[in-house]
């Protein structure tokens, strides 16, 4: 009623001031929690039921017959619509006499309908002394209704500029991780290079030390050998000189020895001419036999024969035999006067 009165008043008061596409109306207040109950009170300012404007100037004009007709038509249309809607609703035919319509389930699996609701008890208990699990990533759920708007490109933000800090962080983290890994490897490689260089030097120095040791050993051994040789040489020299001295002394000592020995031997009568001795003994024998034998002459003749025979034998012999020969001649000479005597 109110908007109609309002309209009348407006039309009556200033015809043609406003024109609308849709008539202004008060919006119902929005309920947050309950949908069913109707609105009791709304904003006073926008409530339809509040009389607006001049209160003493209302109800003066007759309702416009055009308006009344329009209203009636609208009412009629609404009724017709309602009737049509009711007709469209299909009703089941009325039950036959003696029967009653009953609601029945026609699905494949029948459900037991009842007042009692099926309840199931489920229990859950975390393990005692379990370590607190890691916190799940918490992103708060969005509240409210989604409203979409169309945002043209470039209106909100410039992607290229905005993305830079994020990209920097991302790339920074990636590169940091990569650098850490590379550094670990580089550190190891550095250590290896150091070790390599050190080993090279060490081997060279070790070889040098051993070479010098070896050289030292060789020289020392060589020296030892030469010293030994030299000492042996000296030793031999000494021995030789001693030997020479000894020989010289011995020679000198023995030089007198032989003549003195010979002379002493001769003196003691060890050297004799066996022929002379023999003749000497023979002369004794001769004189002896001479005294004993009668035929001295026979004896001397036979002796002469013997001497001549001996001479013959002795002639080709050496000079000692020459002595013997001389002695035999001497003997013959000696014997001749003796024989002549007899």
């Amino acid at each position: 009623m109110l908007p109609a009165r309002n309209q009348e008043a407006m039309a009556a008061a200033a015809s043609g001031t406003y024109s609308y596409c849709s008539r202004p109306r008060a919006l119902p207040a929005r309920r947050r929690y309950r949908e069913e109950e109707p609105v009791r009170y709304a904003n006073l300012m926008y409530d339809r039921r509040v009389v607006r404007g001049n209160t003493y100037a209302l109800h003066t004009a007759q309702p416009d017959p055009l308006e009344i007709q329009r209203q009636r038509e609208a009412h009629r249309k609404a009724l017709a619509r309602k009737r049509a809607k009711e007709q469209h609703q299909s009703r089941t035919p009325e039950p036959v006499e003696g029967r009653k319509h009953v609601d029945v389930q026609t699905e494949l699996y029948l459900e037991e309908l009842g007042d009692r609701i099926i309840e199931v008890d489920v229990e859950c208990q975390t393990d005692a002394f379990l370590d607190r699990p890691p916190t799940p990533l918490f992103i708060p759920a969005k509240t409210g209704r989604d409203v979409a708007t169309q945002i043209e490109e470039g209106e909100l933000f410039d992607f290229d500029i905005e993305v830079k800090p994020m990209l920097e962080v991302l790339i920074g983290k990636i590169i940091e991780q990569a650098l850490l890994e590379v550094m670990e490897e580089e550190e190891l490689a550095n250590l290896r290079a150091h070790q390599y260089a050190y080993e090279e030097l060490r081997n060279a120095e070790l070889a040098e030390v051993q070479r010098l040791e070896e050289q030292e050993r060789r020289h020392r051994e060589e020296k030892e050998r030469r010293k030994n040789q030299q000492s042996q040489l000296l030793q031999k020299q000494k021995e030789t000189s001693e030997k020479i001295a000894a020989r010289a002394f011995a020679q000198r000592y023995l030089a007198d020895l032989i003549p003195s020995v010979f002379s002493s031997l001769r003196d003691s009568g060890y050297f004799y001419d066996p022929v002379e001795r023999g003749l000497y003994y023979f002369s004794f024998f001769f004189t002896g036999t001479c005294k004993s034998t009668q035929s001295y002459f026979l004896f001397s003749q036979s002796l002469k024969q013997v001497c001549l025979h001996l001479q013959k034998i002795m002639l080709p012999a050496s000079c000692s035999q020459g002595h013997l020969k001389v002695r035999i001649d001497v003997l013959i000479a000696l014997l001749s006067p003796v024989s002549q005597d007899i």
Partner: protein
Amino acid sequence: SCFLGSLSLALSESDSWGVFSEQRESIPQYRGMAHARISAKLPPDIDPTKAAIAFGERALPKLNEELQSPELLTRQRALMALCDLVHDPENVYQAIQLGFLDNLKYLLLDHDSTVREKTTEVLYIMASHNVGRDGFIKYGVIPALSQLLNDPVDICRRNMHRAFEIMAELPRGAVGIVDSSLISSLVLKLKTELDEIQELILDTLSGCLCIEAFEALATGAVSILKEKLTHPSVAIRSKAARVLLGISVPLEGKNIVWDEEVIPVLVSLLEDSDPEVRANAAGALMNATITTQGKYAALSADAIPPLLKLVDDETSKVRLNAIKALTMLSEAPEGRKTLLNHVDLFRGQLNDSSEAVSRAAKIAIKVIEWKP
């Protein structure tokens, strides 16, 4: 792999924000009311093969407990998580304090190969830190690791040998390896292992030989190394020559090297294309020709011309070793006679960039021109 992981994390973070809002619209129950679980999509960096790492101080103790769990999957996941954590030396220190090494030693003998692989990998990464190495020596991890020498899985053996190699670079670690009498088994393994692992074993041996060479010599290492000198792989040749260098430092080593007639093979290696091989061969010759018989063996193998060529090589190590080897040879009269003609070559090296080379050249000239 960490790098790629972080990259994927960054990318997925950037687009997941948009996805969240779309998803929340589409799931009916999220309309209107706030919910405790934010999204059906899990956070992007969850790796299902790794155990969840507890916060702060509890991380390592919890992993320690998980390592002792009887369930296989728990142990595997704990090991995967541990592998990542152990790159940080502070974590290594804390782990050793908590007694991880005993658990890891126990896990080395597990039936499952994945567990063994990951355990050896964790131990290898720990060994690359100094605290880790100290811990190894203190808790006797080396004998425990050596039980895996005959493991059927290649990766386990490879990680184990890598750990040994790193330990051998430290003198105390090398002492530890020698004390566990591992050298003989390592030398014997050289004959049967894969090439990759042979390289690691050779590196380990060259580290240990600085400490003690007799055990290796007793196992007949020299003959095995002589075969390796003619291997087709360059790395193996150079590493074998390096081991020979180390082995010919003591006198017995030099005698055995002469006995086994390795010197002619080394002379032939002097003309190899790789500078490392040449350097190591010259170094081995340098050590082997200290004895008189070594010198004559080298002279009869005609070592002087290739060595003279190497005096001008680009790599300083090659030059140094060649000059030193020639110094050794010039102590023999025949060598001196030949080298007197080439003294100018040495004079050219007197002003070399490397100080060691110029010193060596000076010494060489002095020795060549020495008159008895």
